[in-house]
Structure formats: C-alpha cells, structure tokens
C-alpha cells in the first residue's frame, strides 16, 4: 500500500476516533437516532445479521423497524391530543450503516479506555504509553463530558498533563484501531 494511501486511511481512522471521543452535550436528531442505533447494536440483532449473506441482511429495514417501534412506544405514552401524523425522517441505508459503525466504534472505545484505566495495554501496540492507567482514567472523564480544567481539578494534576494524557490516549486508540482494521 502506498504511503499516501496509508496516510489517508490513518487520517480517516484518527478523525473517526477523535470525533467518537468527543462528549456530545447537545443532541441533534442524528444523535438521537444514533443512540437508538447503539441500542439496536446492543440488542444482538446486529450480531445475528452479520451471520447472514449480504443480500439477506436487510440491515436498513431492521434498524428502521427498531427505531420506529421505539418512537411509537414513546408517543403512545404521551397524551392522546399531542399525537399527530408527523414523524422523524429516518436516514437511508448508507447513513444507517455509518451510524452502526459509529456506535460500534464508541462501544469499542469505551471498552479500550476501561482497560487502559485498569492498567491493561494491548500488546500489539508497540509505541510505549507512559502512564496507561492515568491516561485511561483521564480519558474516562473526558468521555463523560468533563472539561480538561475539571479533570485537572478532579485528579489534582496540571492542565498540561491532562492535555498530554488525552493526546497520548487518543493516539494509542488510533493506532489500535488501525491495527484492528488491518491498516497497521
């Protein structure tokens, strides 16, 4: 694989990891749908569909049905006079596939960060991480929406160290994600 191709793939992986690690305070419709897609992935349906051939998966149909069922449940709990015919516009199959991928990536990041916080480093990553447990703990706070200043105050360390640990942890996750995806 050429250097520029590797670089492009790495950039894409890094961008996705970085974006997945940002705490989402404000939700858009897409974020709401993303949370439902994550629930759909957790339900085990995605693991079942993975076993099927591509032409029999009907991925979009399964996810849409799950989302619509959930919205229908919620709307039926409200008062009858508030119900109307309006509905959330659901994305197409391509966007849904991206949402599934993103949900899996976020779940994967949460697992890896938890392992880092426990001091466990994946042996395939050969670039040394200075303080894996500290980096994991700081990343957990970062994922929970704490600002760097709040993390520094909570852990009694400097703002610069928090920034450094987040950068190291993100780099570690990007390298590990590259290994998992066969780029590295």
């Amino acid at each position: 694989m050429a250097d520029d191709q590797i670089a492009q793939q790495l950039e894409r992986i890094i961008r996705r990891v970085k974006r997945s690690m940002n705490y989402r305070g404000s939700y858009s419709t897409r974020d709401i749908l993303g949370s439902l897609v994550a629930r759909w992935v957790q339900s085990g349906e995605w693991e079942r569909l993975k076993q099927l051939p591509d032409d029999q998966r009907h991925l979009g149909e399964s996810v849409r049905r799950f989302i619509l069922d959930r919205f229908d449940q919620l709307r039926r709990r409200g008062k009858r006079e508030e119900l109307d015919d309006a509905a959330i516009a659901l994305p197409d199959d391509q966007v849904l596939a991206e949402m599934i991928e993103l949900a899996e990536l976020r779940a994967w990041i949460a697992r890896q960060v938890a392992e880092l916080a426990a001091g466990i480093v994946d042996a395939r990553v050969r670039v040394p991480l200075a303080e894996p447990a500290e980096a994991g703990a700081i990343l957990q706070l970062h994922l929970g929406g704490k600002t760097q200043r709040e993390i520094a105050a909570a852990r009694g360390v400097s703002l610069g160290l928090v920034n450094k640990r987040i950068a190291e942890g993100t780099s570690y996750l990007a390298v590990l994600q590259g290994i998992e995806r066969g780029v590295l």
Partner: protein
Amino acid sequence: MTRDPPAAAITAAIGVALAELAERPAGEWPDALRARFPDDPALARQVLAWLHAQRAQAADRDALVLGDGARYEPGVRLDAGATASVWRAYDRKLRRNVAIKVFDAGAPAIEEILAEARAACEVTSEHVVRVFDVHDGESPYIVMELVGEHAPGTGALEPGASAATGRPRDLWEAVRWVRDVARGVHDAHLRNVFHRDLKPHNVLITPFSRRAKIADFGLAVFGTGRAARSRSADVEAGTDRAALRIAGTPGYMAPEQARGLGLALDPRDPADRATLVAVDVWGLGAIAHDLLSGHPPWPCSDGVEAWELAASGARPPPFPHRSPSGERLPARLAQIVDRALAARPGDRYPSASALADELHAVLGCRPTSFDRSPAARLALWSRRNPQLTVTAVVAVALAGMTFAAYAAVLHLEGQRAALAGEVRAVESDKDRLAEQARAARRELDETEANLRAQAAALDTLRGSLREAETEFHAIVQAREQAVRSASLATQALATVSSDRDVAEKTRDLYESFWTRARKEATDAGRDRDAAARDRDAARAERDQASKERDAARAAIGRTEHERDAARAERDRNAEARHQAEAEVAKLLGELTAAVGSDSVRPAALPVEASDPTTRGAVH
C-alpha cells in the same frame, strides 16, 4: 492482555523518533521512519500513525493561528464539545481578550455556523454573550465576548465558568442566575430568537460579580422577517411541516422537544411561537431544577436514556426539599419551578419574562402568582418591610395593652361599688354584733374567773407534777449512773481477772526459772569445789616445779662453770700446740738446709696424731 515491556533501545528509539519527526512535515515521515526502523516496517507504521494522531490533536490550535492573518493569538482552551472547542484568545488588532469557538473540521456546515452567529447577534442584552465576528473560511470560528472580569487585587483578567462548573454559592444566587437568564431569554424572544438548548453548561458566570449570561445559540431558531432558520442539516428539509426534528440536551429537554418539533416552526406564527416560548420556559425551569437540586430534570438511568424519559410523558423526579448545600427550598420556589416544568406547554408560564418576574418576586419577598391568600401576602409584606412590621407590631401591642388597661379600670370600678354596698351591710351587722359581743364579754369574764381558779389549781398540780418529774428524772439518772458504774466495774473486773491470769502465768514461769537456777547454782558449787581442789593441786605442782627449776638452774650454773674451765684449758692446749708446730717447722727448715740433697729427705711427721688431746679439746 498485558504487553511485555519493549526493549529499552527500541523504546528510546521510538521516543527520539516521535520527538524529532513531530517538528518536521508529515510528508517526510514515511521515509524517515523506514530509515530509522529498516528491519521493522510494522513498528514504523505504528509510529507513523502515532505521529499523525498527535498532529491531529494540535490541528485546532493551529487553525487559530492560520486563520485570518493570525489576527487572534490563541491562549488556553476553555471548553470542548462534540463539534467545537472554545479558546481564550487575544485580538491583536483591537487589543482585547476574546473567546473563540473553533469548529472541528467537517463538523457543522458553514451555513449553520453563520446561523448560530447571526442568532446571537440578533439579541442585545446584558444577559447574552455578544458575538463580535465570524470567520467562514476554511477553518470556521466565531469570535465572542470573553465572559471574564479583572481581579480586584491584581487587575488580571479572569475568565468566568459555566454554571455547570461554578455552582451557585446558595439558593438565592441560583435564583438570581435563573432570573437573569430568563430576562436574557425574553430579550431574545423579543427578537424572535429561541434558544432551545438552555442548560447550566450554556450559562456563563462572571468570576467576581457573579452575573449570568447565556451562550451557545447553536440550536437556536430565529426569524428575521423571512423563513425561520435553525442550525442543522434538517433545515434543508424544513419545508415539510409534517417532519419532526429532535434537538437539545437530553437531560434538559422539554417533553414535546424530545418527541420532536416541527422542522419549519415560524416564530411569527402565534402557535409556533407559543411552542418555542414554552420550550425555552421549560429550559429555564430545567436550569433552576439543576441549580437548586443538583441534577437535571431527566436523570440518566440504566437502559433508558434521558431523552426517552422526557419523551415518554413521565414527570420529572420530585423536587427535593433541600438544596445540595443543605438549605431548605421554599415551597413557593418549588411551585414556580414545577410550573415552568409543567408537562403541558399550556400550563407553563406564558413567557420567560413572567418567569423572571416570579423569581424576582421571590428574591424581593413579594407575592407571586401562588401567593393569593391575605395571610401569605401579609407574611411577605412583613418580610419585605421588617422595620414597619416591628413598628406595627409594637403599635398593635400598645393598643392592646391600653384597651386591656381601660377594661381593667371599668371592672375595678364595678367591684368598688359592690364593695361599698357590702360595707354598709357589714356596719349594721357590726352594731348588732357589738351588743352580742358585750353580752358575750360578760359571760366571758365569768368564765375567765372560773378558769383562773381552775388555772391556779392546775398550777398547783403542775408544780407537784414537775417535782415528781424531777424526782423521776433523778431516779432515772441514778439508775443510769448505777448501770454505767456496774458496767464499768464489770469491765474493770474483767480486766483484773485478765491481769491475774497473766500474773499467775508469770509466777509459774518465774518459779520454773527459780528451780532451774537453784539446780544450776548447786552444780556450780560442786564445780567450784572441784576447781578449788584442782587449783590447790596445781599450786603444789607449781611449787614442786619451782623447786626443780631452781635445782636445774643451779646445775646449769655449775655446768657453765665447768664449761668455762674447759674452754680455758682448751685455749691453753691450743697455744701449746701452735708453739710445738712452730718449733717443728723451724726444725724442718734447719734440717732441709743442713742436708741440701735429695737423698737426704726427712719423713713426714704426723702432726695431728702427735697431739690427740688438743684436737679433741678443740671440738
């Protein structure tokens, strides 16, 4: 899975590579890494990925420097979100501190960023963060007012913090913040700007004066005379009024917001406007709920997300009775928050200013819409006017005391009149009773005379009784004395008996001592006589020995005399021998000289044998 520590040399080489290559262009990295790790291409690729990731971390900060001719000098990062981060920066052109919201690459479209900036610019309010500029180039950002103040002591500019970070010091500060934010929201509503994402995180607090300002109009809906606009890709499909859009922060969403609002809400339409106002009023209630109770109205729970709780039509958890700092939350405050958080939009406050007025009334101890009873209004008036209240209470107390005193006087006058009638009746009775008393006195005198006679007899009897008593006491004392004496005698007798027993024992002891002493004296007399006899025998022996000694001494004297005679005889014999030896020697010399040859040799003379008597005398 635990990794074995890499060899120190490889670790050091990786560290050096990361440090050196980080400063060089990314295009040089692949070749440089291949040169450094020629035998390990996998490691080279990992270090390459690491370098790319590190470079991506610094991209946001670099974007600030590169943008707009490096007008803004970046400082520290103040906050970071899903699509943007906020930095403190220095505007070199205008020489002031600002806050810059830098959007991530590929995050919102430029139209959305412009919409956010325009929505904020629409509002002119002291409770809304001002927007100065927007950069819609390759790296978009919004330049905003830096919510900060100069420290009183040092003059240094201190940035503020969000209400989510710098929590209120007490519940009244929380109420002030919500009131100020409500006024800012109302100012925005007057300009047809509806925030839709009100939460403590979007309320910035100045560090010293502790004033609240609204920030982040990223989800705002606003209308400027044309079609309403809101930031999101949903805008593009906003012509379909039947389509819904969910936007907001899950823990703080209004129920109808979580179920989805129409995409093309028009602030100029009364129905849509009421919907948008209700959403923001709910958001203000959510801020109040969070600041006063310590958590958002919709808490996260396992299995169900906060927005789902909001959309399900459930009621928020009951408002606590105490704030996180332990203060008791007034019931009227809870009523206001409950109304702002009403499930039905129509049950909420009709405007943000109505809510602000209610909170202002609470702060000023004035009646709210819930304080309708006169008693509640009077209680609030008294809290609002404590001096007047004290004065009124004192005046009422004085009036009451005066009335009570007057009533007491009237009551006493009535009592006095009644007593005068009673006095008159008593005086008539007194005369009658005086005559009766005189008669009684006479009878009394007679009775007294009789009593005196009886008293005299009684005195006599008493004298006899006293004498008898005296005698009785004397007898009793004598008897007691006798008893005491007998007791003492008994004790003395017991003592004497004891002494006698002791004396008898002592006597027996002495007698035994005496008997033994006499026996020992007899034995001693016999021993003395025997000793006298021994002494006499010894004396006789001594005398005999003295005689023998004297005889021996005489014998010794004689012997010494004989010895001295013998010694004199010996000395004479010795002299004679010496003379004889000298004559012999003289003869021998003469003989030797006369012969003069060896043939004539005299025979040796036996000198000692010639005088045996002398020899024996010498010894």
